[in-house]
């Protein structure tokens, strides 16, 4: 699964980077506003800015690479990059395989999105989710019929085409799409709280890197810069770090 990738980006840091250690940041690049590839072909989004800020504080020389979501953990453990910073919720199942830093984004409820006019019952019908996400696991065990797609974009396309009745994904990802659909798409049913907050994934054998990242996140929480970034990318959402 060497789905390794991307010329997306140049070394991010400059400040005193001469002797800095190179850290390869792995992300998906298909989940706005968390991370996406902008029109210039570079990794962009909330996590790009958070990651760059963390690297600046920890004095790391960061390089961004993208990787398909469904093989993002295997490629971390086999060493193709050193961190996963891709809107990945901290769950027990994942924690068994890799380690997480403290969260840099609070737990975000997952929401159902459907075509306008759909009733709340659609959450028990055919629900689309991205393969290997906490949402896919949740739908599979909820009794609804799960349809799995490999990219987030395809799950939304499935709802538009009527292929699936609803899609379950992070609220923040769907919010943009609902807002810009001219009323075609709506949120339905109750939001569900599935995973924990979002943290940076690292290999279990990389305790040193994990400590450095944790210290940097601590500092960003203390000086308010993390709150500011969350407000910037998530429509003024107030986080209380």
């Amino acid at each position, binding site marked *: 699964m060497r*789905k390794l990738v991307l010329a997306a980006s140049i070394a991010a840091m400059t400040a005193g980077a001469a002797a800095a250690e190179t850290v390869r940041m792995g992300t998906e690049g*298909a989940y706005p506003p968390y991370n996406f*590839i902008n029109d210039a072909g570079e990794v962009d989004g909330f996590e790009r800015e958070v990651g760059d800020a963390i690297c600046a504080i920890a004095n790391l020389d960061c390089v961004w690479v993208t990787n398909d979501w469904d093989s993002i953990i295997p490629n971390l453990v086999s060493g193709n990059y050193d961190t996963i910073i891709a809107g990945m919720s901290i769950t027990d199942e994942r924690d068994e395989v890799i380690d997480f830093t403290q969260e840099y984004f609070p737990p975000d409820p997952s929401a159902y999105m459907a075509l306008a006019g759909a009733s709340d019952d659609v959450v028990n019908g055919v629900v689309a989710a991205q393969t290997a996400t906490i949402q896919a696991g949740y739908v599979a065990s909820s009794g609804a019929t799960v349809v799995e797609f490999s990219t987030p974009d395809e799950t939304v396309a499935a709802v538009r085409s009527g292929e699936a009745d609803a899609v379950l994904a992070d609220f923040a990802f769907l919010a943009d799409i609902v807002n810009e659909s001219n009323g075609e798409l709506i949120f339905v049913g109750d939001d569900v709280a599935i995973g924990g907050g979002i943290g940076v994934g690292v*290999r279990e054998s990389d305790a040193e890197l994990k400590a450095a990242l944790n210290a940097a996140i601590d500092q960003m929480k203390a000086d308010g810069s993390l709150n500011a970034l969350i407000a910037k990318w998530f429509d003024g959402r107030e986080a209380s770090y």
Partner: protein
Amino acid sequence: MEMCADPSSLEGINWWMCYLTTGKHQAFYASFGTVLLLLALTAPVVMVLGFSGAMARKSSIPPLRWLGMIYTNVVRGVPDIIFFLFVPIAMDQGIEYFRHRVKCPDVLEPIRQGNDFVVCTAAKMPLGSSPQWMHEAYGFSLALVAFALVFGAFAANTLYGGMNAVPRGQLETGEAFGMTQRQVFWRIQVPQMWVYALPGLTNLWMILIKATPLLFLLGVEDIVYWARELGGSKTSRFAYPHPDWRLYYFAFLLVFYLFMTWASEKVFARLTRKLSHGQATLGGEALKVTA
């Protein structure tokens, strides 16, 4: 371009001109080069592997002959995709394992720690500190080797058939002239086998062209990767929002591939005519009449 500074104000033809020249689109256009580069580099490697495979099968040393047989038959009996999913990781981990043994003999911790595949920093391939293009080049070379291994088996089979198709009388004539086995092989059999192997090789080239989208599965950013990325619907987070256009991007890829196979067909038709000159085959006879 100057006018593309504020995409939201653009309309009509200007919007399209700016949209089609974004950095992402340039990466898309460049990825066609990646595909052509893969074809250009794989073809000679495939020929070398195929030729070695065919020679191994003709060898008088039994183990070498068996190796040739196993290689050509097993690889062809398993779907190519399964090889592609498997071979690059196996090679990657194999290389790193080997480098770990050589470069860090004093590291005593096991390489497999639970789920982690941990080799020392110096054994990483490529080194973690090397620039991104090295990582990409390495990924691309793994893909290239995987392609060459699979198609080499097919080429070996075709060339083996071609060698055997050279008329027995030609070889005997060579022997009558007092040539050694080696001379007969290199001076008579090899130069003549091409015309017999050409239909098979043409077919193989077509298959190779049509297998290039599988690069996408190997994690190389090829035209399929970018078509999917560009075609997906874009919200106003992006400078050029648009609905789901994957259909058009894939249709474009279809046209590209149809053109590639069509053009190849023309080229090979010419090559066949050329090689048939002076050959004791139906094609060769036909040329004699018209010439």
